[in-house]
């Protein structure tokens, strides 16, 4: 059995706390937007949006990034992931943006996401929210909001399963196959 590191209730509490932290740190919701990184950063961002709505009664703008074309590990000989659309339905210029992703690992995804975001304009600032920080950064990137820090070995896998994508809410730690 793989250990469950967060169950449904714990995920929900973590998201509540992060929502409060975002509102606190930014002194409200002015000029603030959420951007989820595909795939599971998107439901994470949507839940934050709903939670912030229940706290502040403000619906933040929500964008979606598909960073496939900005990755640095493409062309390694493996077949490409299917690319899906990026949707940023608001002006990025002078907006404070909270990037949302499910797991923070090497930081390379976030680097790609920041690069893509910059192609839409010059945001006033970019913050980072992650449900799980598992360490092993390869770039100087740190999160502003963390659901849970989980020490892992590099060979392990963190599997975030969210209702919207997987039909259940759970984070599990998987030992890599020998």
């Amino acid at each position, binding site marked *: 059995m793989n250990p469950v590191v967060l169950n449904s209730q714990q995920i929900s509490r973590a998201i509540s706390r992060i929502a409060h932290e975002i509102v606190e740190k930014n002194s409200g919701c002015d000029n603030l937007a959420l951007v989820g990184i595909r795939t599971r950063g998107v439901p994470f961002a949507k839940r934050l949006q709903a939670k912030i709505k229940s706290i502040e009664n403000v619906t933040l703008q929500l964008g979606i990034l*598909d960073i496939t*074309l*900005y*990755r640095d590990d*493409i*062309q*390694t*000989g*493996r*077949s*490409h992931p*299917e*690319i*899906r*659309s*990026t949707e940023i339905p608001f002006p990025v210029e002078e907006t404070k943006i909270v990037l949302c992703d499910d797991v923070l690992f090497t930081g390379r995804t976030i680097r790609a996401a920041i*690069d893509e975001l910059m*192609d*839409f304009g010059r945001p006033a600032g970019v913050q980072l929210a992650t449900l799980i920080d598992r360490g092993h950064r390869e770039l100087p990137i740190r999160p502003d909001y963390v659901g849970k820090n989980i020490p892992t070995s590099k060979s392990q896998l963190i599997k975030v399963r969210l209702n919207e994508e997987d039909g259940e809410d759970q984070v599990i730690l998987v030992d890599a196959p020998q």
Partner: protein
Amino acid sequence: MQYSQKHLLGIKGLSKEDILAVLNAADTFKVYTQRDIKKVPTLRGRTIINMFFEPSTRTRTSFEIAGKRMSADVINIAGSSSSVVKGETLVDTVKNLEAMNCDILIIRHGEAGAAELAARHLSNPVINAGDGYHEHPTQALLDLMTIREHKQELEGQKVTIVGDIAHSRVARSNIYAMKTLGMDVSVVGPPTMIPADMEKMGVKVFHNLEKGIKDADVIMMLRIQMERQNKTFFPTLREYSNLFGLNLQKLKKAKKDVLILHPGPVNRGIEISTDVIDGPHSVILNQVTNGVAIRMALMYLLLGLSDETVN
């Protein structure tokens, strides 16, 4: 869905999944081409050689823009300015270009099979940008993308292709693709311009334009290729235009929501009248826009698989 081939030499031999993989990726790339900053860093450091032994504006520019939007370095070589005029063989030219580490070779040539010949001597992907009377696969893909964009579904659509079917690589590639995707294809043209075995491919043949376009969801007009008409297949251009040229009058016989495609360049007033080209049914310029997205998608898909032994 994954594109399973190493090259794109023709539509013949591609599966439905291969074709749809390119179309789906292209739909996404199109969104990128509509942004303010149209360039993505995906193919940074890659080199793409665009080798054209026949005249072209649309296709050559489209490949060049596609490569540049993906941040690749694109080098254009015109046949007339290459060492081929000094007597170098195609295979030698291609091998020399590979020796300079080009990652994708795009080739247009007047002889059928030129792209395949190049592919046999190259370890990197080759894209056929038109070879003689044989195939023009990227044109067929961008045509399908355009049809799908307007009609949502491809399966079951009725398409009528009008013109010199026998000498058209566009028609050939489109017929292969459309039959693979379960579309209903008819062709219209004078008997001298229709290949003998069309019915065997499941294609209906008409020699009367009005009859041929009556039920069509899509009409694809082909260019009368003056440069290939050293043998004449019809008595005069005016007669051809009267019988097989599309104008508003004849278009009244077609469906209200019919789409008009033309691979370009158009001979205004010969195979298609000006009011039809610029009219509401025409998606000729959408085809050109989609061409860039299709070619970006292909470069992306082909380089992703280039290190694997596929096909």
